[in-house]
């Protein structure tokens, strides 16, 4: 109960029930003991309290169901007046077992009708209503919220009730009264519609409005809170989901008229407001593409937002803003003459006439002179010629260069155009009056080109050196699948044998395009080097036939092949361990590792199995037969003799052969050896040693290489001594056998310990020229492979 005293001197409000004032002389009341405290129900019957936790009051008879007589089951009774169905036929409802208190206001199933929040209109809360009206200004007709006023709830919340008791009136603010001019506090809308909501103190305040005396205080201005509509769902700001009612144009599912939601579209329809934009049929909405019913593909289905729609400055909008931005009507801008800052009025495009061409204009692009440096495919000689001569580069490119190295003139020539001579030629021109700077430039260019071209030249020279003077009839047929190409290659090889310097150019088909020719040129040179006849290094790469006769396995991994004898010997001597053990990197399948529950040892590996061992279809074993080795030895001897005789005529011989020659000469000078085989063998060995020295000077290869070489050479000593012993026996057998043995011993001696050779192979792989031919890898012994590379570089 509330007491609101508005006495003259003091206004105070008291809440709750006031205690009776204590009288001094009265003896203290004894508190009522617990058992005497009784609770009665609304009919005055006692209720026994059961305690806080067991809860509630007793039910029935001594906390049992039923009466003093006990619980009696209902009996079936049916009479004419009272049909049994009414009571018994229907299934029992929960209500049948509930007490009458349960149906009361505070029961568990109240049957009284009372207002639920769901249907409570918010009209009592005028401030909220006002806020909503303010917020909904843009999209609604004014006074739209009026309808809500028609429905009013009889009761208001306790807070409002309390405030009203304290003297608050609707429409006023809360707080101390202020001395100021009174203001109109009711909204215009409510007054315009016939004062549906007569504010409490409006009459008084309106009366005061005129004079506003000094001694009168006013209630503070009511504030309109911002209506915060809670956002439900997880969508972004401003998201409005699909409206299924919109899917079927117009006569769609009649939406429930929600009068109280200010932005409800159906309500705006109700008030005759046309919906924004012309909606077409079909489902459309954000986050969806064009629906199946949508026939217009051009329509922008995805919401596009631009920054121009947002304010960039935190400021109040200018009320008298006459600027319309980009969307201003044209005449508006014209009449006003006021333009947005940073923009200008639209003026018709000024069209300039095209420039008048000079009479001597030729629509040709002239290439700047520096471009020449890009052309790497020309030889140094050509560059020299280019520099000194008339300044016109000849299109013939003898060395190499793919399609992309050709310039426009060359391409034109390929296409059959006649090259334009003179000033407008697309080829590079150099004016005769070169200044000093340009001259330097060209010199630099020439040297660069020479460097680029020299590798190709070197290869050709090497091929020539290798083939020159050979009479061998055995040929590898690398281009067997293209007979014409193979024929050309053979022609090239035969010319090489004759020592023809222009062998390559002559053997190429002039009917082919330059690009094809240049490719073929490269291939031929490479093939000729690769299949060069029995250079000494090559011949030493073959193991004896003995091994192949022993086991008839066709596919033999080359890495192990050379070591089998060692292993066999070791196994016979029961020296198992390092000598018989070989370890390889092995890549298991990812799934296999998964199934075995172990992490993959090479997580980034894509291959499976052994990475090193390659069984090449075109391995050297396919080309060579056992009988060849005999021939090879013969050729080897031939080669050394030929080279020594022709050395002077071909200054660009490989250093390899040069060394051989030197050694031969030295040997012959020192001793007239009776046994040619021995000489040759020693020469081989020395040559290898020689090369080792070279190699040391040149670069420092990985340690493995050294190991391989030096351990190999130490093996050589021991094995060569063995061989000498063997030789004594072998000599009796005859030369052919001796050849075999010799050949084999070279192979084995050059091969070092298995691990070292394997590591050398891996170490020397990156230094190999990008011949990328698997045959090469098949051919070369790891240490020797690196030698041959060094030889190439030296020349």
């Amino acid at each position: 109960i509330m007491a609101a005293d508005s006495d003259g001197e003091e206004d105070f409000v008291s809440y709750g029930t006031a205690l009776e004032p204590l009288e001094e002389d009265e003896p203290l009341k004894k508190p009522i003991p617990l058992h005497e405290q009784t609770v009665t129900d609304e009919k005055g019957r006692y209720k026994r309290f059961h305690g806080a936790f067991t809860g509630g009051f007793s039910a029935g008879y001594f906390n049992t169901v039923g009466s003093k007589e006990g619980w009696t089951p209902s009996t079936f009774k049916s009479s004419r007046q009272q049909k049994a169905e009414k009571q018994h036929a229907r299934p029992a409802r929960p209500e049948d077992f509930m007490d009458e208190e349960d149906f009361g206001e505070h029961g568990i199933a109240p049957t009284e009708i009372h207002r639920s929040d769901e249907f409570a209109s918010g009209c009592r809360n005028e401030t909220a209503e006002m806020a909503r009206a303010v917020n909904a200004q843009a999209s609604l007709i004014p006074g739209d919220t009026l309808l809500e006023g028609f429905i009013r709830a009889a009761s208001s919340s306790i807070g409002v009730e309390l405030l009203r008791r304290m003297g608050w009136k609707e429409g006023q603010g809360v707080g101390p009264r202020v001395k100021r001019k009174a203001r109109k506090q009711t909204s215009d809308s409510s007054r315009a519609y016939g004062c549906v909501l007569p504010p409490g103190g409006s009459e008084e305040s309106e009366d005061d409005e005129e004079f506003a005396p000094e001694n009168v205080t006013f209630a503070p201005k009511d504030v309109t809170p911002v209506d915060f509509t809670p956002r439900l769902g997880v969508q972004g700001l401003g998201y409005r989901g699909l409206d299924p009612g919109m899917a079927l144009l117009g006569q769609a599912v009649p939406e429930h008229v929600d009068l109280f939601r200010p932005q409800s579209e159906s309500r705006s329809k109700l008030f005759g407001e046309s919906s924004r934009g012309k909606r077409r049929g079909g489902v459309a909405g954000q986050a969806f593409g064009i629906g199946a019913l949508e026939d217009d593909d051009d329509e922008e289905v995805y919401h596009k937002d631009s920054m121009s729609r947002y304010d960039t400055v935190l400021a109040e909008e200018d009320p008298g803003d006459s600027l319309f931005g980009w969307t201003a009507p044209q005449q508006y801008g014209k009449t006003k003459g006021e333009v947005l800052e940073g923009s200008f009025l639209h003026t018709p495009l000024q069209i300039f006439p095209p420039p008048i061409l000079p009479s001597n204009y030729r629509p040709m692009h002239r290439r700047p002179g520096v471009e020449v440096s890009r052309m790497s495919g020309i030889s140094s000689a050509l560059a020299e010629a280019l520099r000194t001569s008339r300044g016109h580069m000849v299109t013939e490119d003898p060395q190499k260069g793919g399609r992309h190295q050709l310039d426009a003139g060359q391409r034109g020539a390929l296409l059959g155009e006649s090259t334009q001579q003179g000033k407008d030629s697309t080829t590079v021109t150099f004016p005769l009056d070169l200044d000093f700077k340009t001259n330097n430039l060209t010199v630099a260019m020439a040297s660069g080109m020479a460097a680029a071209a020299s590798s190709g030249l070197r290869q050709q020279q090497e091929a020539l050196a290798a083939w020159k003077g050979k009479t061998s009839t055995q040929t590898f047929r690398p281009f067997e699948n293209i007979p014409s190409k193979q024929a050309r290659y053979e022609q090239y090889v035969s010319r090489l044998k004759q020592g023809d310097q222009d062998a390559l150019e002559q053997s190429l088909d002039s009917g082919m395009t330059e690009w094809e020719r240049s490719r073929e040129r490269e291939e031929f040179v490479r093939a000729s080097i690769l299949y060069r006849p029995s250079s000494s290094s090559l011949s030493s790469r073959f193991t004896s036939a003995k091994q192949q006769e022993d086991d008839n396995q066709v596919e033999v991994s080359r890495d192990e092949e050379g070591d089998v004898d060692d292993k066999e010997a070791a196994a016979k001597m029961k020296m198992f361990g390092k000598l018989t053990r070989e370890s390889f990197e092995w890549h298991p399948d990812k799934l296999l590792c998964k199934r075995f529950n172990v992490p993959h040892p090479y997580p980034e590996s894509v291959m499976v199995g052994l990475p090193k061992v390659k069984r090449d279809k075109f391995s050297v074993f396919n080309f060579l037969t056992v009988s060849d080795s005999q021939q090879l030895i013969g050729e080897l001897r031939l080669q050394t003799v030929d080279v020594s005789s022709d050395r002077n005529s071909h200054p660009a011989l490989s250093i390899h052969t040069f060394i051989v020659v030197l050694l031969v000469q030295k040997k012959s000078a020192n001793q007239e050896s009776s046994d040619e085989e021995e000489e040759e063998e020693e020469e081989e060995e020395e040559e290898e040693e020689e090369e080792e020295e070279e190699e040391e000077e040149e670069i420092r290869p990985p340690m493995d290489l050294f190991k391989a070489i030096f351990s190999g050479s130490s093996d050589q000593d021991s094995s060569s001594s063995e061989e000498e012993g063997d030789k004594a026996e072998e000599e009796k057998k005859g030369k052919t056998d001796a050849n075999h043995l010799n050949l084999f011993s070279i192979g084995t001696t050059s091969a070092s310990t298995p691990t070292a050779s394997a590591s050398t192979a891996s170490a020397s792989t990156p230094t190999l020229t990008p011949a990328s031919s698997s045959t090469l890898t098949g051919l070369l012994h790891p240490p020797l492979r690196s030698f041959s590379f060094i030889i190439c570089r030296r020349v």
Partner: protein
Amino acid sequence: MMAFPQPKPEAPQLPQHLHRTIDCKQGAVRAVRFNADGNYLLTCGSDKSLKLWSVKGEALLKSYSGHGYEVLDADSSYDNSQICSCSSDKTVILWDVGTGQVTRKLRGHAGKVNCVQFNEEATVILSGSIDGTVRCWDTRSRRFEPIQVLDEARDGVSSLKVVQHELLTGSVDGRVRRYDLRMGQLHVDYIGSPITCVCFSQDGQCTLSSSLDSTVRLLDKSTGEMLGEYTGHKMKGYKLDCCLSSKDTHVLSCSEDGHVYCWDLVEGSLSLKLAVGKAVVQSLSFHPTETCLLTAMEGKVQVWGPNPEETQEDV
């Protein structure tokens, strides 16, 4: 009373007493194998059947038929729920133990399949064939292609064993290969003579390999050095088994002279020469924990134990 000291641990016993002989009635027994716990045994017959026996009760539990030619090897999974077997018909079959049905028939080998093994979790079947490949079959997926084919061997793979993440294969090319899945390494040990059988020791440190030069060799797993060499038996032409005893104390090998040879592992001396019969001892299998040995000769399987028992001939 004085407390007697604990008796010294007895010297390892050898399965020298014949407990019983089982006539398998499936032609020649090509291989005999204990299951994972040693309570059952599998016999691979030349009459295309695979039989499951109880060791104790010597009863035939089940016969599995489905192979198209003689069965050469079999292995049971750790949980006894599955059996894999391989055959001369180039197939590997995964059996369901309970129903006896073929769960999977794996084709892919180009020749007869010599040996087959489950991995520890029975997720992969590994089979080695005369075609020189080891194929890893997935038992989990429905794929019928092997996960990986190990074709490093130059000749037929005669034997293979899997322990944890390591696969040991012996090949007729005279090399023992050990694939280490965890390290991604392949170690090849050259033995020289065609390998007939390979084994891991129980401690996983050594490998045992028997070869056709009538020698059994014990190699150190990590370095490949030879730790022991056991000779005296005859193994010249048949693919015969060898094994280690359950406590790694002895090395056992079949022999073509009708004996099983048993050497002391450390000393290399012949401790026992078990006379099985007159013919070649085809296969043998040592109990995983107890001292119990199975041997197979011709059509019969012998069970050997350490202590003499009442022998029941020819069940």
